[in-house]
């Protein structure tokens, strides 16, 4: 079957230069091109990911033995704080929105750039500043509170650089807010002619939903951390039980941000996977409106469930029940998405290229993560597994199994567009499989560990837990390989990869109609959306029975 390749860009000497044409450092550091800023983010988050992953590796090695012989308790505590802070705020949250979102959102909307290009560059610099402060805090001794900064430990008892770390995260928050603001306004105001709301790509819907959370939740975190840091510096504060303050208020405010933040991390992944599933089954997604509205429903309901992090914190029984109920409710739109993706495959024309393998891996792991989320939403079970390795396993299934798989899938899918080159397909497929196996070996044993009662953030543990910890560490080493390989072959492909045409996958969408890599202003002439989105032609006859 011939792929419907659309080649609208006429290749002659009049072809506008690619956005990668200029090489000077200055041209990168002062760029307002959304595509270049996306790449700037990519380079930065790889650095943060590497540091955070190294911290995880040391932790897993330490947990090989029950007594935790490798590092001291204090070091271990600083390691998991480093891992949490960097992974959450400096890798997962910016990963898909700031890298793929920045690169793709204007392309998918048919716009020349984001609404506020200078603000976009500013948000990268703010990100760098926040990251620099956090790295500085790590270098001068680190922080041992965990990424959750619970008071009164963080505000009074910890002897580490909590305030500095909080300042770094606070500053980073502004980067998130500005990115979210830019995306919301761009989606509202810069759509190409004919691009109605129901012709938006599902990735755009998910970015829009994510941005709403970024804008509405992040300031609450900023204020919460400010109050915590002020209490630490000032020695009197609003969460201090001695003044009648309530440490639970900190938890309420913290999770009012941090639970929606979980959806900041997973919604973009869902958007990417929707694109991959359509692109590789050459078919319009099943139930477009439901998938799109499910993104919005998750964003809205996601704001109402934070209290499930506090079922055993002594919040009221009534609040516990309300939050449990709402947590089940938010699982419905997630389930809708999974069902719709599966139904999209029906009568498709499926090719199992690397991005598709990642997408399928995502659906499997996300489903497992989502199902165990139901366990945690169930009050009676949560009382037992709360703050144990069960929780760790659950959210790594969502964050790593879900989000990172989707990010890798997206990166492979759009790499030809980003770099103009193909990566080695066989290595790509191998990597996807290695990652899937390594991931499951690392985190599945942790479910059992959790139900057995091993609490999280333990640098040493009773001997009966050792078997599962050894399995987990073994898996982590395989997983590490799965992350190192793409780094190598992506770099290799920049120079030696096969040239990708405008549309190597035969996929639908504005970004595939322009050159690879795209010209500075994205499109040679402003595109117009004349048909429904994902309007793949029916397969030719020989492909049918």
């Amino acid at each position, binding site marked *: 079957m011939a792929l419907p390749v659309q080649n609208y860009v006429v290749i002659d000497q009049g072809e506008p230069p690619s956005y990668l044409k200029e090489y000077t450092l200055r041209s990168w550091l002062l760029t307002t091109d959304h595509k270049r800023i996306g790449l700037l983010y990519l380079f930065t988050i790889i650095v943060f990911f590497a540091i955070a992953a190294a911290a995880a590796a040391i932790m897993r090695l330490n947990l090989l033995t029950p007594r935790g012989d490798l590092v001291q308790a*204090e070091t271990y505590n600083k390691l998991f704080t480093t891992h949490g802070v960097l992974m959450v705020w400096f890798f997962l949250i910016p990963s898909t929105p700031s890298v793929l979102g920045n690169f793709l959102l204007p392309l998918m909307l048919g716009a020349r750039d984001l609404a506020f290009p200078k603000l976009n560059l500013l948000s990268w610099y703010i990100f760098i500043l926040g990251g620099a402060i956090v790295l500085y805090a790590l270098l001068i001794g680190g922080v041992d509170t965990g990424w959750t900064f619970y008071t009164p430990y963080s505000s009074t008892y910890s002897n580490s650089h909590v305030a500095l770390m909080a300042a770094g995260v606070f500053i980073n928050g502004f980067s998130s807010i500005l990115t979210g603001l830019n995306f919301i306004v761009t989606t509202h105001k810069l759509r190409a002619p004919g691009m109605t709301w129901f012709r938006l790509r599902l990735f755009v819907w998910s970015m829009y939903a994510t941005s709403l959370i970024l804008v509405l939740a992040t300031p609450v975190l900023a204020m919460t951390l400010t109050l915590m840091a002020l209490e630490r510096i000032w020695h009197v504060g609003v969460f201090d039980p001695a003044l009648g303050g309530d440490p639970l208020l900190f938890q309420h405010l913290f999770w009012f941000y941090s639970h929606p933040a979980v959806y900041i991390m997973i919604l973009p992944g869902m958007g990417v996977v929707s694109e991959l599933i359509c692109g590789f089954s050459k078919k319009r997604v099943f139930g477009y409106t439901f998938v799109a509205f499910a993104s919005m429903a998750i964003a809205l309901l996601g704001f109402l469930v934070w209290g499930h992090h506090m079922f055993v914190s002594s919040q009221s029984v009534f609040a516990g029940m309300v939050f449990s109920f709402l947590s089940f409710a938010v699982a419905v739109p997630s389930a809708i998405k999974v069902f719709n993706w599966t139904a999209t495959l029906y009568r498709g024309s499926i090719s199992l290229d690397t991005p598709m393998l990642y997408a399928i891996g995502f659906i499997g792991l996300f489903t497992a993560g989502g199902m165990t989320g139901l366990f945690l939403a169930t009050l009676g079970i949560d009382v037992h597994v709360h703050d144990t390795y069960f929780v760790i396993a659950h959210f790594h299934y969502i964050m790593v199994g879900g989000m990172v798989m989707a990010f890798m899938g997206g990166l492979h899918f759009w790499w030809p567009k980003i770099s103009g080159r193909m990566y080695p397909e066989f290595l790509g497929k191998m990597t996807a499989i290695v990652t899937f196996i390594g991931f499951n070996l690392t985190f599945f044993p942790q479910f059992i560990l959790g139900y057995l*009662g091993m*609490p999280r953030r333990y640098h040493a543990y009773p001997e009966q837990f050792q078997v599962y910890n050894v399995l987990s560490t073994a898996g982590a080493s395989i997983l590490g390989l799965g992350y190192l390989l793409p780094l190598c072959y992506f770099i290799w492909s920049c120079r030696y990869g096969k040239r990708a045409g405008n549309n190597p996958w035969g996929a639908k969408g504005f970004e595939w109609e322009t050159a690879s890599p795209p010209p500075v202003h994205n499109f040679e002439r402003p595109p117009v959306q004349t048909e429904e989105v994902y309007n793949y032609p029916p397969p030719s006859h020989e492909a049918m029975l």
Partner: protein
Amino acid sequence: MVIIAQIQFFPDQASKMAGQVDTLLLWLIVLTGTVTLAIAAVMIFFLAKYRKRAAADRTPPKTENLAVEVTWSVIPFFMFLGLFGWGAKIYFDESVDPKNAMEVHVIGKQWMWKLEHLQGKREINQLHVPLGETVKLVMTSQDVIHSFFMPAFRIKEDVLPGRYTTQWFKATKPGTYPIFCAQYCGTNHALMIGQVIVMAPSDFAAWLKTGRETVSVAQRGEQLFHSFGCSGCHAAQAAVRAPLLEGIYGSQVPLADGRIVNADERYLRDCILIPNTQIVAGFDPVMPSFQGRISEDDVFAITTYIKSIGSSPPEASIPNR
């Protein structure tokens, strides 16, 4: 192969509640497992049948189908509703204050558990309890937030500074089970572990008598009630008009601002430490705060004493001054 012999899939099950939680867990595993496997099976089937090179019927199907969408939204929703109700039932049962429970006081501090039985017997990182008796833990922290976690009973509850939290269990199987601190509390968080030792009631009674002679917590509380000067006002004959404390525990107390509160341990504790936030209707806010002047141990003792004078008539229980 010592390690292989240690492999376990389920933690010890040492209370009725643990059994209930495990039953719910198994149901959840079966239910979610079935759904997950079904999705996987359908997906793999589609992936195989409709792979690009395979010949298959590819007549474009409808891409919007309201009936299907509603079906697969509503069915999970009702399934979730059932799970919610079941889980909530267990949670509610766990949170209801048990009647006639044997009380143990727990103080968490970095990084140890201090426990005290009402008979005055104290332990550190160990909790001896009799088999088949309901045990209620009244817990507070001296520094940061901890969490008292006993996997064998499938319960945990955070232990907070400046407040009492409670949890209860009824052990049904003798043995030694772990206690963990589940809320990260600083450097040696991982070492803040201990043991619950469930013993036959007779052994427990014998155990209580071992060691040094002790006075009961209520007796200690009574002494403190006098030495801190509480009895100077809270007595029938006192010159200062203050509420009488006999029978106050468990009663409904009307407050000056119109609210009515249940006088439980938390209320009594707050009245000692931050008295002016909960003035009893008809009284002046004259009580000094004891915040910073009294240890958590002593607050426990005094509240226990006040609870112990619940049923006695006022004249008999207040010694003459």
